[in-house]
């Protein structure tokens, strides 16, 4: 695909517009259906499986895969790794949209979405892990909007507002790291309360740590994946600095991902040893656990390491995509496979077609919003009037 072709598809109605348009239209139908017919007819949720695909994928995976925001801003602004500066804006945009979509998906899932502010306004259940998650996700979404507003202000040429945001960028970054540490880990901690329902291989006192560390992997991998996709489909929006810095980001993040993944695998083995769960490895669940841990965490760690050592960005891109799948598999395993593992076969949950439909709609919405922002605002390139980006 040449640059000219992609340049044209940005302004004209192409297959992207037609396909996404149809999906969004379908999403509108599902929205009407949800708020007129309710969850009963729409989903396969039941009293044994109160949380289904929307919590598993849209919430747990959505939040993990949006971790690129805090990982990249921390690397650039706190650790002072300026060569990753070109990755900050795409990562913050992805994170902001990710969290926004998590909240949107939740409005479909909870019974009375207009009450979502109740924990903060009406009555707080402070003993609940979910309270912490809700509070952190809410504040972090506002933090991400503040971080991204810098880009929007440049776009609207509001210099005063932009400089105000720039002055608070360090504060916002630290806040983002704190909030992310808390809610990424707490999403795992949600399951701590039900040890009797969780398979021992996935249940561990360390599950908050697992969720947090794997979220870092997800963040690093998603930045690589997303920058590669942007380079492929939105190359005409990239300036020279982004073109040149791309390899640095991929190699650097790939190397970091190799280390963090290796640490994650070690932690998981430690968890097995602490709870003495080795005997479960010989069962069917054990096979799934090993496929997840070795095939989707240890293997990409190895590939990341080779890619970083031999400076092969192509290899790193594949490893990144693979480990993103690994995170998704892990979250689904925790929330839908390990959960209620003792139920007999016929009682297990499988999402209905409208549940899949809504998830596809939410992801598509994210793609469309990303494309809208990245093609109009200075995300993949510097604004010509504001070149002092840091």
């Amino acid at each position: 695909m040449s640059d000219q072709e992609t340049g044209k598809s940005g302004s004209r109605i192409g297959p992207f517009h037609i396909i996404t348009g149809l999906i969004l239209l379908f999403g509108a139908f599902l929205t009407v259906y949800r708020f007129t017919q309710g969850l009963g007819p729409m989903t396969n949720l039941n009293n044994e499986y109160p949380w289904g695909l929307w919590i598993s994928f849209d919430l747990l995976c959505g939040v993990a895969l949006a971790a690129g925001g805090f990982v990249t801003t921390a690397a650039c602004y706190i650790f002072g790794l300026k060569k990753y500066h070109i990755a900050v804006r795409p990562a913050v945009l992805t994170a902001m949209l990710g969290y926004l979509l998590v909240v949107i998906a939740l409005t479909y899932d909870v019974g009375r979405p207009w009450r979502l502010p109740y924990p903060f306004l009406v009555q707080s259940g402070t003993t609940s892990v979910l309270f912490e998650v809700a509070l952190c996700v809410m504040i972090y979404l506002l933090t991400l909007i503040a971080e991204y507003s810098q880009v929007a202000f440049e776009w609207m040429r509001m210099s005063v507002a932009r400089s105000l945001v720039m002055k608070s960028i360090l504060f916002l970054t630290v806040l983002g790291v704190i909030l992310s540490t808390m809610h990424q880990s707490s999403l795992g901690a949600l399951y701590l309360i039900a040890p009797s329902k969780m398979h021992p291989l996935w249940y561990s006192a360390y599950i908050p740590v697992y969720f947090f560390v794997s979220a870092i992997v997800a963040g690093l991998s998603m930045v690589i994946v997303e920058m590669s996709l942007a380079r492929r489909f939105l190359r005409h929006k990239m300036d020279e600095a982004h073109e040149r810095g791309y390899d640095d980001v991929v190699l650097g993040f790939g190397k970091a991902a190799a280390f963090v993944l290796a640490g994650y695998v070690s932690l998981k083995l430690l968890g097995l040893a602490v709870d003495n769960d080795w005997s479960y490895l010989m069962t069917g669940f054990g096979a799934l656990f090993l496929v997840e841990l070795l095939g989707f965490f240890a293997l990409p760690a190895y590939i990341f390491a080779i890619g970083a050592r031999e400076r092969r960005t192509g290899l790193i891109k594949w490893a990144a995509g693979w480990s993103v799948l690994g995170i998704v598999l892990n979250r689904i395993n925790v929330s839908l496979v390990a959960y209620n593992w003792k139920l007999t076969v016929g009682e297990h949950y499988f999402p209905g077609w409208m549940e899949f439909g809504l998830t596809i709609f939410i992801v598509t919405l994210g793609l469309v919003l990303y494309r809208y922002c990245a093609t109009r605002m200075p995300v993949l390139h510097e604004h010509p009037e504001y070149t002092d980006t840091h």
Partner: protein
Amino acid sequence: MHRRKFLGLMGAAGAGSVAASTARAAGGKHFEGYPDSFAVLFDSTECIGCRECERACNEVNNLDQPERPFDDLSVLETKRRTTSNAYTVVNKYDVPDQSAPVYRKIQCNHCMEPACASACFVGAFTKTELGAVTYDPSVCVGCRYCMIACPFHIPAYEYDKVLEPRIMKCTMCYETRLIKGELPGCVDACPKEALVFGKREQVLQLARRKLQTYPDRYEQHIYGETEMGGTNWLYISGTPFESLDMNTELGDTPAPKFTSGALKLVPGVVALWPLLLGGIYAVSRRKDKIAEQERQQSVEDAVAETKEQARKELEEFKEKAERDRKKEVDKAVKKAKEELEAERKDEQGGSDE
């Protein structure tokens, strides 16, 4: 009211005046249970599977009529759980070495430290001082985390309600009967002594007495005495509890304990991250600053060095020029002298001739 079903004396007025307090039981601290709370003892050796408790529950709580009436006992052939339309169900179990089937009644066990109350992020559940765990639909968001949290698979959800779905579960008839000094509907309706209501301590004493008096008849365990930190619904049985689908591996740790540890780390994160990150930031800033200084210094040094060298070269050049000039002058003088000498010789030679 059957006298035997109601252990101890509960003045209607007295019980009514006991106000519900908020779920202190939901916290991380160890909680012994409200001292005067009530409990129900279920004795599976007494239960005949007549479903009268189900009928009473349905009436007291104004639930919809089920498809099949309560006197249709064929319902018992399938295993059921609590639903939004049935706060209690009775299941039938065929136990290998017993001729008659064994029945077990399922409903909320009213944990002393309830998982649901601990998990709810709007505090919709209350562990009342009477022992009942109640639910307030006026704050419920419908997130269904209580259903995830409950170790007994009890709370049910009104999936078919579009705008106002509620969590539905047994409340021990708290509002409708308990605070008026009446027995819970199911206990009142039981034609046998399968359900006995009283102060938890007294109910426990009754259970222990039964186990001691008829050691051959009962399993020597009171289910709910310690399970999940203890519950206000207790069970004794003539068959192992596992054979009645009761989870005997729950342990005695109250549910809130499982998450309180993780939640306690939160203030640590809030306190430590800014310090650590601030430190890292300071280090990276200083590194940048020093690198910048060193760069500037080396530029200055280079400039100075170049200048010095240029000065030296200029001086050398000057010196050389001076030397050359001197040489030239000397040469010229010498030449002039020689010429002068030669002229003089010529003049002398000419006069000699």
